[in-house]
């Protein structure tokens, strides 16, 4: 029988790859952020899983709270960049972001 920790990590891998796939495949800038958010979630779950298995739950909680704060700021900043970009170029297509080259 597979133990709980291993199964957790199996699903964490799946969630992570879902987010990664989203970032790789999508042309929509907003979907990039959705993928990013899903990957962050998998990361969070990894930390709590590790905290549980090592008995360091309190530490894990502390880390997770900080991570959530960081995550929300990062997402807010990312979305504001997106909106600003939309206002400037009227596009959220990530493929159109290729003016800097060479």
């Amino acid at each position: 029988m597979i133990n709980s920790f291993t199964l957790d990590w199996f699903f964490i891998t799946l969630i992570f790859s879902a987010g990664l796939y989203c970032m790789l495949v999508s042309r929509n800038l907003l979907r990039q952020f959705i993928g990013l958010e899903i990957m962050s979630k998998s990361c969070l779950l990894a930390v709590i899983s590790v905290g549980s298995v090592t008995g360091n739950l309190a530490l894990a909680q502390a880390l997770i709270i900080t991570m959530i704060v960081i995550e929300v700021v990062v997402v807010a900043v990312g979305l504001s960049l997106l909106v600003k970009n939309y206002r400037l170029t009227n596009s959220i297509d990530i493929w159109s972001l290729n003016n800097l080259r060479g």
Partner: protein
Amino acid sequence: MNPILIPIILPLASALLILLISEKTRYIKELLTIAVTGICLLSAISIIASALFGVSMEFASAWAGSGIAFTLKADKLSSFLLLGLSLFSFVIAIYSFSYKQKGNAGWFYFNLLITASFSAGAALADNMVTMLFFWEGLLIFLYSFIALSQSGQNSKKTAMKAFLINGVTDLCLLTGICITGYIAGTMSMAGISLNKLTLDGWAALGYVLMLIGALSKAGAIPFHTWIPDAALDSSAPFMAYVPAAVDKLLGIYFLTRISVYLFTLNGFAQLGLMTLGALTILIAVMMAFVQSDYKRLLSYHAVSQTGYMILGIGTLNPIGIAGGLFHMINHATYKSCLFMTAGSVERQTGSNDLSKLGGLFGVMPVTAVCFIISAAAISGIAPLNGFFSKELIYAGTLNTGYTIFFIAAELGSVLTLASFLKLGHSVFFGKRPEALNSTREAPFSTLLPMLILAGICVAFGFGARLPAQFLIDPSLQGLGLVHTEAIAGFHFNGLFWTSIVVILIALINHIFGLAAASGVASKSSDHIHYAPGFKEIYAMAERRMFDPYEQTMKHLPSLANILYKVDRFFDYLTDDLPSFVANSFSRTSQRFHTGSYPLYMALTIAGIAVYIIFTANYGGIK
């Protein structure tokens, strides 16, 4: 100032002075040169007198350090050589006083004086590096001498030929000197002679390389090919001075030095030298015999006579060496004189072509007499100097036991005489062409040197005891050779009678030739020239099939092309390839940085994946 420096520094200084003298002045340069060379001659006399009757003069000065000192040493051989060189400088200076076809006068005298100075230096130098310095200096001015003697393109080409041949052989000389100096541990010739080297291992290579340098200077086969070309493409004074006199003197001098003074040779080297001498005699004289140009014919003889000297020195016994040295000075005398007659004829008639000349004895008697004397001398006719030196060489050759070389030398004598019979007959006797009826005798300044040299020929012949006693014998002593036989004197021995036979054969041949050529003297050699077997060889020689230089030059472009390709390749490797590679990488990177986010992301993810797999496999969990 030490008198030993006069023959070097004085001409050098006046050469530079001559360049300052205006083009328009007349006779100043000429008179200055005559005066300078005269002073040099006088100082050479004083030097040899000091060497003969007192102590050898020496001059030493620290130069480049570490065993390379500027050392001059007037021992008996060197001062003998210096005397000869100074004499010819002086005579040529007089000869060219009124000689017009010598190129720009300023440059001519500049080259003449520089050559005089450097050759004196080379003769006197004791340290081999010092000698090399003067020797290479001569090479440079050999080029300018030929190149500036005529205005045409041919002279430049010939100058380049002479320069390249001598340059390559001088390089050999340089290498040889380095090897020898390294083995002997000193660069001083006097120092090496105290403990002579033997021909083994590297020393043999050093000897051979130096031998090449000396033979090339002397103009032996196969390094002679520039001389006949120069005969056509440069002036008579140059021919009379450099190839006929200075080069022969220096080359044979250095050959003697290395073969006798520095090295103890073995039988194999003796055989090699003698073979080379005999071959030089025969091949050059065969070529000379069929020539139809006055100076070119003489120039082949200049090569041929070198063979006698090499043969003489190659015998390695005192008699042969004495003959070689005596022949060296004799040859310089009569060959200079012959070239002067050629120059004089050319000057008065404007032609060197034998078929256009004839019957000049009537209008140019003095020149003709000088020619006859020196031609007789070169052919070894009895009481003249050439007879005595050749006799010594024959005797030396017979002493070694190699009779074949004696026979070859005698055959050379026959052909020499035959070719001079042809030459004299076609130039000075026979029927005079209409165009030459107004020809007059050359001026005094031209005749005087010829007379001097012809006089020396006669004097050294009738009074052969004098030079033998005062020049040759002391030189042999200087070389450390001891001999018991008398080296001078007129003997009615077998050699004399052989020479009579030689004369007769030559005469018969000439008469036969004349008959075959139906009386045209300039064609009297055709019966040999166009004889079956010879004809093809001569034709090939005319096409310069046997000229190593021309053959090399013919194949050089393709070689050069290959080398050029190789060079391009290296050039490409060092210059173009790096910038090409850098540029192509740069261009690739530019094409890659498209600004496309998916590409960048994929690259990043791929990098991460590789990194993680690698660290997990090697550094990590297991």
